[in-house]
């Protein structure tokens, strides 16, 4: 519905992706001087983060992103993140990429749902960007790119009305409708129920600009207040202390969108069929070819703007596993419920040969390298380090 939703969706999902990757990379890194040639180091981690962030905030890509447009399907968007995640020497198998995407989307769904005001989605976005700036604080070049995007966000969204923000929020909620994947960290923190639904508190500060419920005021025909009554409910609300900052720098006040992961709080998901209504997934499976064509055009524009740095000649890509072991990752791939699979876009569905060729070229750069023999890659020894996570 709202044609201004995509930048917010992309940046917030991207922010969550970076939180997760950063946590996994930290959990597996070895101090530089002690590491063997084929082991992850802190330097590797920073490089992966820098590469992905540089790609995400590429000027041409951002230009395409900020153009007013409708949201496309989950599978079209997933293709963009596939490419982004492979913007560096890191490689992810399908199962790990699926898990990464599940975590990203459930996290942002939670944030959108719990935003006190629709406008607070902007504060959530700023929280993600603040954290991203911290990831690359040693790289002024990339920092500039991120600040540029920050300014563009302020320019695009600061003047929107509350009603327009609510439309953006409603558009996002339709996008996330029927997703009930259980996330371990949410279950532990009791923000998600075992049926996959989020807990909506009925206590705490009311949104900025809202009064605590309870007061009824009656006015006479002269406009004078003539009566006051109160009503009570089970809710336990309080007045908020201050409003978050919408400037380039400032205290956002809102905690939604800040990094909830740490080395001691690992990421896990349960692939649950608890979602009774899989109608929205079913609907995506029967999307006809004409729809795929428009999505391919969108992807070609967006991905065409991404400038992926290819790994140098002597370097090999090495694998990051979002699961604890290789076996777990394989098992997840085999047992992923059909209704939760993100079906990869079929390029052959494109009708225009020219467009198809262009997209093939772009996506061709995305080809994931086959796992190398054990002697060459960091991936294999990485597995040995994953015990105890």
């Amino acid at each position, binding site marked *: 519905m709202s044609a201004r939703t995509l930048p917010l969706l992309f940046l917030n999902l991207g922010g969550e992706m970076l939180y997760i990757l950063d946590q996994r990379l930290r959990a597996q890194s070895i101090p530089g001087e002690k590491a063997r040639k084929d082991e992850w180091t802190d330097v590797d981690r920073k490089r992966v983060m820098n590469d992905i962030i540089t790609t995400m905030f590429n000027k041409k890509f951002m230009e395409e992103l900020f153009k007013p447009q409708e949201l496309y399907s989950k599978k079209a968007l997933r293709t963009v993140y596939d490419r982004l995640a492979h913007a560096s020497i890191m490689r992810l198998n399908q199962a790990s990429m699926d898990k990464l995407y599940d975590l990203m989307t459930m996290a942002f769904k939670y944030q959108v749902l719990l935003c006190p005001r629709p406008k607070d989605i902007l504060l959530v976005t700023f929280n993600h960007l603040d954290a991203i700036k911290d990831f690359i604080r040693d790289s002024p070049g990339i920092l500039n790119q991120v600040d540029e995007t920050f300014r563009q966000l302020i320019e695009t969204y600061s003047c929107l009305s509350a009603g327009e923000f609510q439309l953006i929020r409603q558009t996002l909620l339709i996008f996330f409708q029927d997703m009930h994947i259980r996330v371990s960290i949410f279950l532990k923190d009791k923000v998600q129920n075992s049926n996959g639904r989020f807990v909506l508190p009925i206590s705490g500060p009311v949104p900025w600009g809202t009064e605590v419920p309870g007061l009824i005021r009656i006015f006479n025909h002269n*406009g004078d207040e003539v009566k006051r009554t109160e009503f009570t409910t089970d809710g336990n609300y309080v007045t908020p202390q201050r409003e978050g900052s919408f400037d380039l720098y400032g205290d956002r006040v809102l905690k939604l969108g800040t990094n909830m992961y740490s080395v001691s709080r690992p990421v896990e998901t349960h692939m649950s069929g608890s979602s009774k209504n899989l109608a929205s997934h079913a609907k995506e499976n029967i999307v006809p070819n004409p729809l795929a064509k428009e999505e391919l055009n969108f992807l070609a524009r967006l991905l065409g703007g991404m400038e992926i740095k290819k790994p140098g000649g002597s370097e090999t890509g090495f694998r990051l596993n979002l699961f604890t072991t290789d076996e777990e990752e394989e098992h997840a791939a085999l047992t992923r419920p059909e209704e939760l699979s993100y079906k990869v876009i079929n390029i052959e569905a494109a009708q225009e040969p020219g467009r198809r060729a262009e997209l093939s070229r772009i996506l061709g750069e995305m080809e994931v390298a086959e796992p190398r023999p054990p002697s060459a890659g960091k991936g294999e020894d990485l597995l040995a380090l994953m015990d105890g996570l």
Partner: protein
Amino acid sequence: PPPRRMYRKEKSIQLKSSSAALYNNLSVLRLPGRQLACFSAVHGPSVNVVSAAADGLGFSHRQLQAKEGGMAVSTSVLTQAAWCVLPSRVLLVLTSQKGIQMYESDGSIMVYWHALDITEHPPAEAVFARGIAAAGGRFICVGTSSGLVLVFDIPPKGTNITVSEVLEEHHDAITDIAAELGQAPDGAGDLVTADDAGTLCVWSAGEEFALLSKIPAFGCTCSSVKLWNGVVAAGYGNGQIRLYEAATGLLRAEVNAHARWIYALDLAPQTGKLLSGAEDSFVHVWKLSRNPDTNDVEIEHCHAECVTDTQVCGARFCDPEGNSFAVTGYDLSEIFRYSQA
């Protein structure tokens, strides 16, 4: 005093798919003498239409799709579905990003399609229709995202529906439209329209609609509106309900009703009960009345219902006295029902 419990929860009605987070996302049709109540809730690109027999036995389900409208390739999302009761017929009206679809009341046949003129809207802005009400015993009024209100002239039967007028008073997307449900005092109007900025317009309906009063915005979206005995009841994004005199626009009551954005209001015309549902998980029942001595409008709180872990998006009374009501919530595949204990 402790919260009052006037209603108790009844058996839910299961839906084929979940409800979307859209304003006023529940419509109820009660056909008197037929013991049948119908419910409709928008899922997204489709709407669920359920017919339930009053004895609770037997449901029939239907899903209607948003019409693509010709050359369009992207899927269209529905914004609202509502039954419009006219003296001679009942139509089910759907609004979407592409236009307006009108069906026979059971959803079996589409009798009319009106495509929105994309060129009328500024580029880069969202385009959609939203806000549906029957008015003046003869018309169906539908709002658009550019602030226009289309007035459709509905013949007693058949498909010869025409646009009789376009009302151009709002500058922001229409959110809701409501017709007078009771008896309007002189000059109090037949119809109220509300928009994203919070502006309300009161109209008299007829061959030519006339603007009677304009209630200015105060900085909050009005997402839902009702008109009863010359009183406008409006629900806002800051959780407030405000009551105004329709004829003069005078503010008569201000209620800090909800902790978050109000999504739905409904009114039971026989008793003046008002229902409100919001993102804060609460549904409240209020009672509107007129003090016979002072002529002041009064409102009192009757019942609070917390729909746990649910952002309420639709709420409707199921009968004209307000003895029962139904609720929908975002991401929920059921309609909750409550009736007076």
